[in-house]
């Protein structure tokens, strides 16, 4: 057989496509997919917020609690019962289809309170030291109930809610395995749940209505904020505000808005203050140095 040399044809094994075109195509595909997934997750998260069953919400709360309420968590304290009773006396019937409320006392000097998904109310002991009447304390609790009713804690979790709901549906979150701790990392810092001004003032208005329902008047419930306001004006500059207040609308604004609401609704802002039980600032109501 005679061999006749033939030129080797090109581009059999190399696809004739410009590398940049190929690159742009790939980049666009990945970018579009990412945006679609991100938007889809946001859409699902918004839907989940209002359609989550109480059981799932409870499970999510159980997963989140250890991360949000780190030690020193006070487990056995008579004050918990008092706070629970106060909370239940405020609780409106609209909350009966939501997970039951639980009080958790946290040994921390910060003047703060928070509510987590699943009805976990965290109360820092600093708050118990700062309040001067039951009405003030009840207002703070009712404010947190307002966030709970509006499902703000769920909303604030954003897209990570989808993963948590999925995990609890698959039964991953219930056991305290490394799976749930990975989820917490994914969810980020829960103590930094941020609510918008709008959510805050809605919670405030809700709180005042609960207070009026319980005490028949809104008197003394705002004293807590007024004291802080006075401190500010006396010093001429904003004092270091407790977290509960600094993350919330400006104090004066807040009082003004609530006063206006009370006038519109015909609620009285005058009335007797209900005293706090003796020794609320101390463990088990026992005497302490505070």
């Amino acid at each position, binding site marked *: 057989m005679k061999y006749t*040399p*033939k030129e*080797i044809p090109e581009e059999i*094994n*190399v696809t004739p496509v410009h590398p*940049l075109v190929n690159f742009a195509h*790939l980049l666009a*595909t990945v970018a579009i997919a990412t945006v679609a997934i991100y938007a889809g997750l946001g859409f699902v998260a918004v839907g989940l917020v209002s359609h989550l069953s109480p059981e799932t919400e409870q499970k999510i709360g159980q997963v989140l609690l250890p991360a949000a309420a780190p030690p020193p968590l006070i487990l056995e304290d008579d004050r918990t019962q008092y706070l629970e009773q106060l909370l239940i006396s405020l609780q409106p019937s609209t909350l009966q289809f939501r997970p039951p409320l639980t009080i958790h006392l946290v040994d921390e000097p910060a003047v703060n309170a928070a509510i987590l998904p699943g009805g976990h109310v965290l109360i820092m002991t600093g708050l118990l030291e700062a309040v001067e009447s039951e009405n003030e304390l009840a207002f703070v609790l009712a404010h947190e109930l307002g966030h709970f009713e509006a499902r703000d804690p769920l909303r604030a979790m954003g897209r990570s809610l989808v993963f948590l709901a999925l995990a609890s549906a698959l039964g991953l979150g219930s056991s305290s395995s490394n799976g749930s701790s990975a989820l917490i990392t994914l969810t980020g810092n829960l103590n930094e749940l941020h609510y918008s001004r709008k959510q805050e003032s809605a919670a405030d208005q809700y709180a005042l209505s609960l207070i009026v329902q319980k005490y028949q008047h809104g008197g003394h419930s705002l004293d807590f904020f007024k004291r802080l306001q006075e401190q500010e004006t006396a010093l001429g500059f904003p004092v270091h505000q407790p977290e509960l207040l600094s993350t919330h609308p400006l104090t004066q604004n807040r009082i003004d808005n609530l006063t206006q609401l009370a006038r519109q609704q015909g609620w009285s802002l005058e009335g007797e203050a209900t005293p706090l039980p003796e020794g609320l600032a101390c463990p088990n109501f026992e005497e302490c140095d505070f």
Partner: protein
Amino acid sequence: MELLVFLTLLTLGYFVGLHLERRHFEDIKRREHKTLFVPIANFGAKQPLPTAQTAQLFMGSVVVSTDYFKSFTASLRNLVGGRIVVYESLLDRGRREALLRMKEQAIAAGATQIVNVRLETSNIGSQTANNGMVAIEVIAYGTGIR
């Protein structure tokens, strides 16, 4: 800052990589044309081999590596699946270069024909690291006869 480094590497990889690749392909084409007169043929087990005075094994081997641009494009492709087009030219260069090196050696030794040529490849570089180096060795070997 990180993005700046990334973009610099990507641009560098693209332009330098493209330039070197073009030059290599030109070189390959020139040498392929020059060595075209020596046929390469493979024979099956039951086919009679051509008679020869001398026979000698010749081997050509080459290692080629990707550039940053190719690696990144391939990692994007990893997400969606499909043909990794950017690596095709790389492998093509490797195969042809290895064949050429073998062939040039055989010609220098006076071979008139190269029979039963085989190609083998092996991975060099880390496969575990995500953005690790991808380098490949291509070996071509065959029997040069005279």
